[in-house]
């Protein structure tokens, strides 16, 4: 499916704005895609949500203030797009992609690590949508509690609560004492 971007040819100024956007966006495109894909449990709709997030970010880039981290701003937009998708999505895939743990894993020769990676991702798939987002924002993308709270319109206490509940679930899943 082609990306339906705004008509840039009509506005020369947009060319400069657009270029600035891409300069900032490129370093985060892979991680943003992974975040959206994982948050949607590897649904094929993730590609559309990713595109929609990029379009929206480009469209509203003129309103972005450089004194805020671009990455947080970008993920906030993705979060809003994900929220819309949660409402309209009746069911999400509950199966891990086949290629997980078979390639691109840091240490393919370590079967224990491979198994742990699989278990963690399976656990994430079972979490509530909102919790799963927090989970990946914290553990995959490295945002801190305050950043996640701001991006997802939650209190810091609520984010901490979610993370604590997830830790307990992880301990159980990995066979640790909760």
């Amino acid at each position, binding site marked *: 499916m082609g990306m339906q971007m705004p008509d840039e040819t009509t506005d020369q100024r947009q060319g400069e704005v657009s270029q600035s956007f891409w300069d900032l966006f490129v370093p985060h495109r892979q991680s943003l*895609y992974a975040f959206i894909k994982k948050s949607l449990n590897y649904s094929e709709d993730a*590609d559309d949500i990713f595109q929609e997030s990029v379009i929206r970010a480009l469209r509203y880039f003129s309103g972005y203030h450089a004194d805020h981290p671009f990455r947080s701003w970008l993920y906030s937009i993705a979060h809003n797009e994900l929220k819309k998708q949660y409402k309209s999505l009746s069911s999400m895939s509950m199966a891990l992609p086949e290629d997980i743990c078979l390639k691109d894993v840091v240490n393919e020769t370590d079967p224990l690590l491979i198994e742990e990676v699989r278990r*963690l991702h399976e656990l994430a798939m079972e979490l509530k949508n909102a919790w799963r987002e927090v989970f990946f924002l914290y553990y*995959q993308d490295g945002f801190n509690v305050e950043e996640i709270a701001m991006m997802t319109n939650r209190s810091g206490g609520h984010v901490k609560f979610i993370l604590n509940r997830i830790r307990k679930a992880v301990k159980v899943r*990995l066979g640790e004492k909760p």
Partner: protein
Amino acid sequence: MKEQDKWLDERIRRGIQAWSPELPKSLDQELNQRMAAGKQLKDNKTKSGVLGKWAAIAAALILGVILLMPLFRTDSTEMINLAKFPKVQNPFIAPPALAITVPKMPITVPSGKRLAPIVPSYSPENSVSKPRQLDIIMNIPDKNITIVWTQLEDFDLLSRKRKGNGL
């Protein structure tokens, strides 16, 4: 955060970051195309920006010439700077014996009102009968000149007042 939780966090982080779905090549290509289009637009803007700057300078020069043209216009009629003149002392002053020619160009009176003189020349002989419109009367004592710019609706009133004053 407990030390145990820190260790667990590190373990989760390592497991989660160990694998991530890759951006599909088709999406990546589209993004690259968009980026290239954005760069092209920026380059175009730079080129047209240079051209636009010269166009703006030329337009400003032309506009300046048009605006300043009246100041350098050679006209047989002497321009009268009304700002230098004293304010109206007596609007019903008797017409002087000297006939004058009012400027043909539109003028701005001290009150900011812009007037186009309708009567090209003024003389005592035609001062009452010919002016069709009266707006303002100015007295230039040192030259003993009265200049009349007129508005039609006031003329009858002026005529009546002049008659009443015995002028």
